[in-house]
């Protein structure tokens, strides 16, 4: 993933302006903001509301409805770990337990300095090669404890 820029009002305004006139622009704009800054800063919400002529409450409502939109920068790399039925049938919950006991990392509870943030998702469409994950957007299939350990180590290395 490309390094995110620090939040900057001028840049945020420019990003918002690019798609402001697209019908139903909220999601495309929020994706662009998150792509640029790594998260949706609180200060961006009134800017989005203003550009789309909606209330700040509505803009915040959209941001908070969708799990993808992060309200703070991620703790290092992001692993979306599938915990839906096909991955359950192939032991994903054992992998979750392994993450917690061996590495002290729990899904959806970012740990400062861990270098890796694990987020629960339900299905990545890689069900024939479950358990599946997406690490900074790159798919990983047939995930096992060894591959998980390697992903955690790579995250730790990048955090240092």
């Amino acid at each position: 993933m490309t390094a995110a820029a620090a939040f900057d009002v001028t840049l945020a305004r420019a990003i918002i302006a690019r798609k402001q006139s697209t019908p139903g622009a909220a999601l495309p704009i929020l994706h662009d903001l998150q792509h640029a800054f790594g998260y949706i800063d609180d200060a961006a919400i009134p800017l989005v509301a203003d550009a789309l002529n909606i209330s700040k409450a509505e803009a915040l409502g959209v941001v908070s409805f969708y799990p993808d939109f992060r309200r703070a920068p991620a703790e290092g790399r992001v692993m979306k770990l599938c915990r839906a039925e096909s991955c359950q049938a192939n032991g994903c919950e054992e992998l979750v337990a392994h993450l917690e006991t061996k590495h002290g990392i729990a899904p959806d509870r970012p740990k400062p300095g861990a270098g890796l943030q694990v987020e629960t998702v339900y299905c990545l469409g890689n069900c024939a090669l479950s358990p599946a994950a997406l690490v900074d957007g790159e798919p990983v299939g047939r995930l096992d404890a060894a591959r998980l350990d390697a992903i955690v180590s790579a995250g730790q290395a990048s955090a240092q």
Partner: protein
Amino acid sequence: MSARVFVPADSSALSVGADAVAAAIEAEARRRGIDVAIVRTGSRGLFWLEPLVEVEGAAGRLGYGPVTPGDVAGLFDRNFLTGGAHATALGRVEAIPYLARQQRLVFARCGVTDPLSLDDFRANGGLQGLQRATTLSPDAIVDEVVASGLRGRGGAGFPTGIKWGAVRNAQADQKYVVCNADEGDSGTFADRMLMEGDPFLVIEGMAIAALAVKATRGYVYIRSEYPHAFAVFSRAIEVARAAGVLGANVLDSGRAFDIEPRLGAGAYVCGEETSMLESIEGKRGLVRVKPPLPALSGLFGKPTVINNMLSFASVPWILANGAKAYAEYGVGRSLGSQPFQIAGNVKYGGLVELAFGPTIRELVEDFGGGTRSGRPIRAVQVGGPLGAYFPESLLDTPLEYEAMTRVKGMLGHGGIVVFDDSVDMARQARFAFAFCAVESCGKCTPCRIGSTRGVETVDRIIAGDDRPKNLEVLRDLCEVMTDGSLCALGGLTPLPVLSALDHFPEDFATAPRRAAAE
């Protein structure tokens, strides 16, 4: 001419190292001074063989798989470019029984062609359906789709042609075509494979729908869990526009149609059609009350055709080969072909497209080869997280809409997830409620609150706390959710719960099986 080598760039293939294999082939060819052109394709859907590398032989494509970067030098040593023998050699790919036994109408090109080459698409039968549609009146296109018997592949099974007819007859200054690619059901990946492997097929199907209902704008709503699919599909739209398949003059028909891809943001409920419309409009994905039907008042309040990606992808074949030929596939009122997806604890997971009517057993045993763990199959969930769990005794149920309804299940998007005998069905019932609680849009009470009460009730049953009373509460709650929810999320969550309870009552009556199985 350089030898062509085909390496999938499908997400599943990438997840087990297809990029590294492609890079190794390129490097090894350069080292040996051999001229090789690597074509990145979609996947054939035989995922246990990925990365599956193919070369051109005299009698068709020859396969090698699964290939690791470490195999590559050996493949060159054995002259794999001309079909040389190797431990990973699979022979003619189309003769592999898993593929040879399929009836691929929708997935005919997936894994074969370069997904972003329109020339490749045309050379393999692409655009024939749209070409024919440009010569027909809107009513004639609708009639053709009605006559084919095509029903919505998203799960509800509503006749596609009837829906198109309603939009066709609606009067408005603007109409829309919306493709639902929010493929959120666990165990399904057919939409993803198409977007990555044959995106022009979907574009062609949507353009035919646009001609039929006189729509000029289309949206494809793609879930964000599919970043590669979104990238490939977005690129395919640009290629199609540059070539005049989309734009102001679709295939010189004088008719305009263009498509915008939209990225979802992690909400399962946005696969529900009205929630998806809200999301495209830039709002929270709250389900709308129906009526009005989206066919009359849909996106931005305008008449809108909304279909699942697989429905659109079925249409080009129908237009190219005729409704009658399509309706010869299938059984009863389930006509045509269905791309089934085999997943979960199974040896040979993959995409199996067949005419409607095979039994669950044929798919999970004959194609799937039984469990990956080698233990007996205990439960098979058909139709995603809102589908029923079937026991061994119901595996001979045919996979078609009406037969599935008769056994209190549904076909959904055609996903089939296999569980071995270590599964604890009370835990699965709990998960169905927990999933609903996480994903509920919150608009209606049965779904928003019922799902959480459901988790609590199953927890009490698991803990052995007044089981008879809590089982009664559970059934009552399921009735309220089924009858009182606004959409299928709350309305169908009872399906996996009740099937677990009805078919596997022992898991709700004793200590959790998981401890016993280990």
